[in-house]
């Protein structure tokens, strides 16, 4: 999903260069990571969704709230959104037209009017455990949710009806501990739905019938420590289909020595998922930690990854060869981001902070 570009930063000089910049965006790969705006959040921002028409984002937080953030303000100050709150961490957020849908560790889904904040619908027992992520179909008619009950559910975005429940994952890890189902993504054509769990298993299914079309494994992203600490760390934390729906990028962390910390290298695997070919394996030793969010650029020429450990990173890779195009540390561990509509900048949220970042030296256009 893309979002409107904040417009307040456009200068007269930039506006005059609108046409050349648009051409540059199509032809040139990102080459800078430049913070344009930084803002504080009243908690840990786990997820975000952009407004339909305005330079506005909604952020799901650890204080159980959803905050509305006007990115066009000179001084950005998040404002509480909604007439009620979840009763735990808000970990999934998507927008379908004028409706915002949130999911939380309290097992509930809430449909909101994105303008007024009124609750349209609440499904209290949407899942039996922590809802980790939501994804919306490109036509915005369906919403998928994944949770630690290891179920994937498909919801009618308009009515809130549960259209399907799929439970094809093991509820326990091979070592007998509770597993977790972290990530979900629709393909750009809306036909496929990918999910990823703690142990590194990815299922790609027909988004209508639920029939599994591919099973992929990323075992490096799951570390079980059998000797020193006797528990595990890792898992698939992010998924993104390419715009042609043929490739699937998977984000997590490489093998970890000391699982007390997020000290594994950030790791991405890109599959030609229909042939189960692991096309690229990308590990970054400079910035460690989980890859929490992924998004392909508009022509699939680049892939943006963000995440972190005790600090954060934003990295852009050339999808042709997996080489790093540009990278920098973020102001915070990043949990989610969205590329703006012009694909020249993005907004990221994470540990008590949010940031707007330019990916090209020439400032973004409205």
């Amino acid at each position, binding site marked *: 999903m893309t979002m409107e570009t904040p417009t307040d930063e456009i200068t007269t000089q930039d506006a005059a260069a609108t046409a050349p910049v648009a051409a540059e965006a199509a032809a040139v790969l990102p080459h800078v990571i430049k913070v344009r705006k930084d803002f504080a959040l009243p908690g840990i921002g786990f997820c975000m969704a952009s407004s339909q028409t305005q330079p506005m984002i909604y952020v799901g937080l650890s*204080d159980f709230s959803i905050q509305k953030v006007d990115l066009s303000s000179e001084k950005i100050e998040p404002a509480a959104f909604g007439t009620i709150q979840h009763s735990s961490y808000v970990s999934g957020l998507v927008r379908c037209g004028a409706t915002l849908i949130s999911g939380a560790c309290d097992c509930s889904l809430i449909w909101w009017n994105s303008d007024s904040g009124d609750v349209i619908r609440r499904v209290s027992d949407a899942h039996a455990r922590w809802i980790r992520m939501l994804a919306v179909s490109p036509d915005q008619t369906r919403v998928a949710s994944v949770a630690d009950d290891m179920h994937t559910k498909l919801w009618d975005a308009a009515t809130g009806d549960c259209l399907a429940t799929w439970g094809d994952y093991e509820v326990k890890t091979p070592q007998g501990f509770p597993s977790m189902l972290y990530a979900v993504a629709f393909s750009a054509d809306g036909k496929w739905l990918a999910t990823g769990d703690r142990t590194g298993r990815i299922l790609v299914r027909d988004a209508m019938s639920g029939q599994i079309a591919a099973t992929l494994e990323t075992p490096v992203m799951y570390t079980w420590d059998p000797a020193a600490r*006797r528990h595990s760390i890792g898992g698939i934390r992010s998924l993104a289909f390419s715009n042609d729906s043929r490739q699937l990028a998977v984000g997590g962390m490489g093998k970890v020595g000391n699982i007390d910390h997020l000290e594994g290298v950030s790791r991405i695997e890109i599959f030609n998922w229909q042939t189960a070919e692991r096309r690229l394996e990308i590990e970054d030793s400079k910035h460690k930690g989980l890859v929490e969010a992924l998004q392909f650029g508009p022509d699939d020429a680049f892939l943006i990854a963000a995440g972190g450990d005790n600090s954060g990173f934003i990295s852009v890779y050339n999808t042709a060869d997996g080489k790093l195009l540009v990278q920098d540390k973020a102001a915070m*561990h990043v949990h989610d981001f969205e590329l703006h509509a012009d694909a020249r900048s993005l907004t990221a949220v994470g540990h008590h902070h949010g940031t707007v970042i330019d990916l090209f030296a020439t400032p973004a256009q409205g």
Partner: protein
Amino acid sequence: MNQLSQPGVCVPSHHAVTRREFLSDRAVRLAGTAGIAGCFAADMGQVHALRSEELAGELKKQDKKVILLWLAGGASQLETWDPKPGAKTGGPFRAIPTNSTGVHISELLPELAQRMQHTAIIRSLNTKIADHGRGADLVETGRMKDPGILYPDLGAVVARELGRLESKVPDYVSLYTSTEGRRKGTSGFLGARYAPMFLSESMIPPNIARLAAISAIDHNDRAALRDALGRRFTEARRSASVDSHNAAYQRVQGLMASADLFDITKEPEEVQARYGPTQFGHQCLIARRLIEAGVPFVKVARAWWDSHGQNFETHQELCADLDHSMSVLLDDLEQRGLLKNTLVITLGEFGRTPQINASLGRDHFASAWSCSLSGLGIRGGAAYGKTDPEGQTVVEGEASAGDLFATILSALGIDYKHEYMVGARPVPLADFGSKPIAEVLT
């Protein structure tokens, strides 16, 4: 006061006992501590003779036991016994009601929540030291380290106070199979007699199996011959030293025969299945088997809770293991009539910070944390102490490591004020100034 000697400085006067003392309950304690540290090995006969069955106090007859579930690395009190849902430090998990009215614990412990009739929670530990090694030293011994003296840990003290001379099983067994933070435990000035049988590489003790070259018949025949010769020798020359010698042989034979206690396949499959597939579950089952066979103190270390990153996922895993394994253990002990004589403790070296770091972890924290006590001597359903709404400080009922030590000893019926003498130095079982928490005791 018990009269102990400095290592290697054991003098005859330390062993002198008047007839009155000999017949008193005090004599049992006095006798049992007569040969500590260096003089212990040289004078086992004296120690053991005075701790024989006929002189054993009522305490030992009560057959009390302890299982310490050591949550190595430091479990989060917020994800276990002292949840703060809704606080900015509270994390994502709910608090759930227990079967004790008004007491709520983390939703990550749903099975234990239904067994709170056995369990008291202490939510107000302030042990101040948030360092793994020094924190463990403090909590395990109930006092700060002292360069001039090596204190025994809880297991050794309990083994010393509750162990029986005639026992053919170990007095103190410690299982710590993970490598991180592994600690053997120490009997300190109590000497090697009360040191733990430490199992780290395997759950089966090494080197206690009969040599393959000796058949079982030969082994038994040799033991019988030695016993017969020993009896004949003793008839004419009875002495404490000879008794000690015989006891040592019996003890070795007992240890060899106890190998089966560590073999959970000796349990019915249904029982094994109840304890579940994890190593911690298996070790809890071993602990029950050892307790049932007469071992007074068993420590099962469950490492590693040190969740600097991904605290919530770590606790989703480890709490599930603790919740199930401990619940099955409590049920099993109760069904076998053992829980009324067994104290089950959950404890680690400290708790975890209320603040959640950028890796979604919690760091070391010793200022306001929790533990639990279940079974023997415990007022089930009690929740003692209180922390502030964010869990940053203790606001009611602050308890030190010494207070916890005194509480545990009191639950076992052991006089926590009782003093060992290490040379001329009196050393109370619980540190000077410690007080038991009466509110969690029956």
